[in-house]
């Protein structure tokens, strides 16, 4: 095994699992995008939009992103602690249980077993499995940290610890339920409280899956691939604590102008604006790390992924808080603008950083160079253009929708029926589908390139 790592095969297993669920999740996304245009594609109950969308979101959040986080976390842990994983057998068991759980999750969601709470739809038996998986992960993270040989913990490890703690707290509390059968339960909270708890979870699932661990990768793999040390350690301390503190207050910005108590909405709005500062502290730290070495954007195939990734993170973390403003939320909420926002975060920031980190990790544990830098560049441009086509189109679509919903005649009556606003969306949905197709092509190139990098070469075999 290269570099004396004990967990190379587990890292490889999680990376390839992650890519598999990524391809599945994106294919489902394409099908959903087509269903928006041709409702006849809702061919069977299990393929109907309402069920399929849930498999798409869960497959990509839990299947792709979590597996990618596990792969890169185990890798970073060993490197940053200069210590082998504390319980390699446990990590291997976690890999198998993880894939089994994701497969069962997909099947149960296709079958319509879901709690309807967004990104938390799994029914209670699978919630128990998710908690078990998380404990397995936490034991390895904390165990390795306790046994470590490197005295100081680098910023990536702080974000990893925050991920472990936050996911545990929000996932368990949001999924408390009263079971009525093996496949059916009701939320422990009613009405307004259920909404408030759900979006506290929803927002912090974004924090602890799409932000903390991805920042951990960014802070580790950008310096590693560029050979440049991170610009400011002090800035990363400020960014970390204020981000982790601020995030938990903002859930209700998903519930602006609903029956949730107004003070909770206003507090959420205030903290959403506050969060721009620590988010941009990481963006600035990334940009300043490049310092006078911007030529590496061209000369190093990985650096551009991380820099574009953190740029989309920066755009997201300004766009998100502005969407919480009452004037804008009244105009944009419930429109296509919001899926546009979410997809720039996931397709831009999260996927760019994870796929680039995986190239680095896979080349390193295989003890050789990446299969093809050229293909990695093709992958980069396809997912960049595909994502922008997808997200910018949805922003415009959302604004059109918002205008149509709010347009009034001089006598105060409504200018458009709801159906008018649906009919106006079809051209936008077609462009979104094409953007998704480009994106999928880019990810297919990535999958091939990563697989070829991970394959044993002729002389090794």
């Amino acid at each position, binding site marked *: 095994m290269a570099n004396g790592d004990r967990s190379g095969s587990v890292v490889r297993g999680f990376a390839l699992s992650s890519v598999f669920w990524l391809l599945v999740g994106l294919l489902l996304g394409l099908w959903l995008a087509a*269903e928006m*245009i041709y*409702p006849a594609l*809702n061919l069977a109950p299990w393929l*109907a*939009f*309402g069920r399929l*969308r*849930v498999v798409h979101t869960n497959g990509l959040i839990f299947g792709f992103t979590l597996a990618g986080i596990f792969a890169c976390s185990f890798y970073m842990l060993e490197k940053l602690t200069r210590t082998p994983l504390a319980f390699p057998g446990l990590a291997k068991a976690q890999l198998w249980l993880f894939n089994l759980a994701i497969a069962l999750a997909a099947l149960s969601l296709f079958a*319509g077993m*879901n709690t*309807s709470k967004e990104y938390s739809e799994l029914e209670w038996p699978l919630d128990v499995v998710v908690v078990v998986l998380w404990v397995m992960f936490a034991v390895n993270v*904390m165990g390795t940290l*306790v046994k470590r040989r490197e005295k*100081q*913990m680098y910023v990536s490890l*702080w974000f990893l*610890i925050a991920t472990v*703690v936050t996911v545990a*707290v929000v996932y368990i509390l949001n999924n408390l339920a*009263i079971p*009525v*059968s093996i496949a*059916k339960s*009701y*939320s422990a*909270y*009613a*009405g*307004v*409280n*259920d909404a*408030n*708890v*759900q979006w*506290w979870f929803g927002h*912090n699932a974004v924090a602890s899956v799409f932000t903390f661990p991805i920042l951990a990768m960014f802070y580790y793999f950008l310096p590693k691939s560029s050979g440049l040390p991170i610009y400011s350690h002090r800035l990363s301390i400020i960014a970390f604590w204020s981000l*982790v*503190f601020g*995030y*938990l*207050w*903002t*859930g209700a910005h998903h519930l602006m*102008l*609903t*029956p949730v108590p107004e003070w*909770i909405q206003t507090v*959420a709005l205030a903290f959403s604006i506050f969060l721009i500062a620590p988010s941009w502290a990481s963006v600035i730290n990334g940009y300043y790390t490049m310092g006078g070495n911007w030529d590496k954007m061209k000369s190093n195939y990985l650096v551009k992924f991380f820099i574009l990734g953190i740029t989309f993170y920066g755009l997201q973390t300004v766009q998100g808080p502005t969407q919480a403003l009452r004037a804008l939320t009244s105009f944009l909420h*419930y429109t296509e603008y919001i899926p546009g926002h979410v997809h720039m975060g996931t397709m831009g920031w999260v996927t760019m950083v994870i796929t680039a980190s995986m190239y680095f990790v896979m080349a390193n544990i295989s003890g050789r160079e990446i299969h093809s830098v050229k293909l990695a560049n093709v992958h980069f441009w396809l997912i960049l253009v595909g994502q922008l086509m997808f997200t910018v189109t949805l922003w415009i679509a959302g604004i059109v929708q918002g205008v149509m919903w*709010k347009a*009034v*005649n001089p*006598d105060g*009556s*409504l200018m458009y*029926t*709801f*159906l008018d606003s*649906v009919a106006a969306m079809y051209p936008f949905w077609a462009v979104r589908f094409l953007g998704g197709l480009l994106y999928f092509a880019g990810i297919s190139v990535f999958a091939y390139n990563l697989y070829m990098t991970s394959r044993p070469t002729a002389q090794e075999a």
Partner: protein
Amino acid sequence: MNINSLYEKPILFAVAAAVVISVGTLVTTFIPLFLPSTQPVSPLVKPYTAVETEGRDIYLREGCNNCHTQTVRPLRTEVARYGDYSKPEESAWDRPFLWGSRRTGPDLARAGGKYPDAWHYRHMADPQGMFEKSNMPAYAWLAKKKLDTSLTARKVKALGYGYDGAEVARQLAAFRQTVTAPAYPSAQVRSQVTPAALQGEITELDAMVAYLQKLGRDLKAAQATVARPSAAEAAETKNPYAGNHEAEEEGEKIYKENCRSCHGEKGAGGFGPKLAATTHKYGGSDADLFSSVAGGRPGGMPAFLPQLGKDRVWKAVTYIRHLEKERR
């Protein structure tokens, strides 16, 4: 202790992180759970019946909340489009809440009582048949599945709806009798979408329609005793567009978008009464027709004044007048 040693002690660091994330959690999420003002309860809003509970579970199973919201925001255009804004009391019995996050389809918080059951049977079975540009999936197959009621008693007990298994059985029997009776007002459309073998049973589609008719119903009932919106328009008696050909053409467009799905092509009739006729159920004067369109009528005629405005309601009336003439 040197503060920097925090970055050398992983367990201590994890505890510190847990403390830092709990502050916002406590204030915005945990404490509100124990404040009765967060989720007020009103006797005006009733728990779901046994059938409505099952219908709601089908709504969850099919993920309807992925495209439909159930919360009307206190915004002028939103109230005009959907109805009165949502009150916290209305969600008191909702586990889980179903406010949603995206409106690919319209909000449903005020769907109850807006249309007759027949409208929903037809629409669920074939949305594009009613609205060509709609992208809603068809749910005709729900009518082909008998409603599973084996867990209903356990469900209402877990949900704390305050009635027992015997009451569940009574409600199910009563509901079955209602929807299968020949006198059921939507019997004709129900029999068209329901296979022969299940016509005497409660289907999943029956339960879904029952649930949709519950949405916002209690609030509307409470408000009906307080104020009638159409009363303010009683003074409208004279059609400013009488005999105006352009208004008639505009009226035809308004009719196609808003009225045709129920009253049929050129007023031939459907779920709603035939309009290409010389006599009308609620009177045939200009004032009567205006009042019907503007304020709605019992049994499924929605009030169109808030969304269309006075001007377009009169144009629609002008077109209806034209239909009468064509018939002669």
